[in-house]
């Protein structure tokens, strides 16, 4: 059974049609990349899947692990195993990273009927995951994303993903704002999670990230639809030729 099955998905923002018929199927263990010019609707797709308010589905369906994803609240989607690494991670003053992650992990465990972790168990887990991403204890104690550099925010997203162990992770331009060393660290973190049970949807504007997280399938999104689908070579081709052939609104 496919893990994610998007059929003829249409969505509007402020009554403006943005997604105009997306079809996409991701099987367990697969890594898909979505590439496309700015403004083509990549983030919109990721928000629609995560359940953000204001992104209205007007047509189509999304099945996730056999259930109607669009019926679920955002927290239920997370509990079902969906994870969105935000293009622009949100700052939350006054809530520490540790509190945030503990609340999140325990909420998800609870909804699955698993035992919640106590403070000691949690600390051990988070230290180990943070170390893999070159994150210090100090970053764990700081307020969520407050005062983090662009790269630190992206690493923080990767940390959350490592702790929550989703079935499908959507990475929305996780490469933007990262220098090459940070990119490698994040990619390593992501690759460590790859496995037959876990799928990735990697959204990116540039091919660079795909050198490190090698996709099985590459899609090109433009004007709210998937215009082309191919193997990883498609990414290289786009790198050479740009999005011009899709009549892309590159400057938009």
């Amino acid at each position, binding site marked *: 059974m496919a893990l994610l099955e998007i059929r003829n998905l249409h969505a509007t923002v402020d009554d403006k049609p943005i997604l105009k018929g997306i079809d996409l199927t991701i099987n367990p263990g697969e890594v898909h990349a979505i590439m496309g010019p700015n403004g083509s609707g990549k983030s919109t797709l990721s928000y629609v899947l995560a359940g953000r308010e204001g992104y209205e589905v007007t047509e189509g369906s999304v099945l996730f692990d056999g259930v109607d994803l669009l019926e679920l609240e955002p927290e239920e989607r997370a509990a079902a195993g969906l994870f969105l690494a935000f293009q622009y991670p949100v700052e939350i003053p*006054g809530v520490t990273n540790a509190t945030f992650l503990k609340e999140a992990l325990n909420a998800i465990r609870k909804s699955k009927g698993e035992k919640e972790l106590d403070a000691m168990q949690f600390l051990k887990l988070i230290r180990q995951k943070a170390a893999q991403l070159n994150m210090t204890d100090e970053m764990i104690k700081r307020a969520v994303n407050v005062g983090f550099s662009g790269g630190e925010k992206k690493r923080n997203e990767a940390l959350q993903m490592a702790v929550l162990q989703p079935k499908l992770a959507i990475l929305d331009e996780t490469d933007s704002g990262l220098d090459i060393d940070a990119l490698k660290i994040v990619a390593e973190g992501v690759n460590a999670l790859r496995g037959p049970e876990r799928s990735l949807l990697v959204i990116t504007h540039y091919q660079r990230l795909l050198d490190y997280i090698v996709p099985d399938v590459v899609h090109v999104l433009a004007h709210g639809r998937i215009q082309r689908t191919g193997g990883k070579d498609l990414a290289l081709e786009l790198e050479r030729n740009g999005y011009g052939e899709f009549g892309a609104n590159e400057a938009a």
Partner: protein
Amino acid sequence: MSTIETYRDQFRTHAASLPGAGLPWMDELRAAGLDRFSKGGFPTQRNEAWKFTSLRPLEKVTFALAQDGAADSVPVDLIPSVMPVGEAAHRLVFVDGRFRRDLSNMAGLPEGVRLEPLADTLARDPEVVAEHLGRTATLDGHPLLALNLAFLTDGVLLRLAKGVTVETPIELVFIGTGAAVGPVSWHPRILILAEENSEATVVEHHVGLDGAVYFSNVASEVVVGRGARLHHYKMQREGTTAFHLATVTARLARDASYDTFVLNLGAALSRHEARSVLDGTGVECRISGAYAVRGQQHTDITTLIDHAKPRCTSREVVKGVIDDQARAVFQGKIIVRPDAQKTDGYQLNRALLLSDQAEIDSKPELEIYADDVKCSHGATAGELDDAQLFYLRARGIPLEAARGLLIAAYLDEAVDEIRHETVREHFRGRVHAWLEAR
């Protein structure tokens, strides 16, 4: 009978038995207080200072003066304290307005510290009271101070001699039990005199049982002498049907530091009015606070910071959370007198509205008569941030828990203004208890 007549009538009945009765100057002060109150009764909303807070609900209730001995034997099993359980705090405890010696602890204070119920001072050493009563808290335009003066039942005298430091917080505890038959009122007067270079931390707790109808009209007069440092914190957790009106007036001498924080969680109707005169150079004054209200609660924080002399600093951060149909008021006035060059004033007021019917009235006012000053103020009111909520939920945290985290973070930030760690942790705990009761 009109409200004024009711109070005049009570005065006739009780005047002879109130503390200090028979001392000519005290009798005169009380009479002046009653006269002043009789001129107009409780302030109405036509009075600019009371524009957003109506005392009509208070006027509708007839309160008996807390006088009989019922409160003297009410068992109290839990006295609020910032101290760890079992550790003795210096404290004075009042139950339904009556001093409870059996629950208080005045022992073990360093030499040079005088802490006692004001009725004791009036009985044994009235000159000290005569010297200070009504000096900082003048009656101009202040019906509540006038009423407090007329009916002054008891209160606190805290005097710190020159150079004395008290490490342990001094706690002033006011408990409303509703043990009396019918609504009662009390009018405590708190005199705090911190002489040159002394230092202490005072924590007031105002607590009460839900459902008890009482009116606590507290007047505090604070004098912080040259170079003295006073930390003055107040927790207001009155019962849900209580009225709490407090007026704190402070006079701060050269190089004094007056660091205050109020947390308003309780009462049906509460107002905390704080006026500080920065009356010497180099004064540092912090008037901050937070509130969290729900249901039909009304809470009001009104402040006046009067920069009278050069090179003083004031900081005021007031934040609150308003749920259901509750209402909050913030009025913050800063005056910078012509003399007060190099003033550094900062004021911030923020309100978080948790429901469509919640309401905040915010009125910052700057009156600046000097030219070389740095003064800033800001006021915002808003709802929880959608982007933050979504981010938390996208990580699996259910909506209500996500809201709780954000509200706690918001209030924690306000409570962080408290410099004293033990007090800060206690206040934080109270805020979180409020949230858990949501």
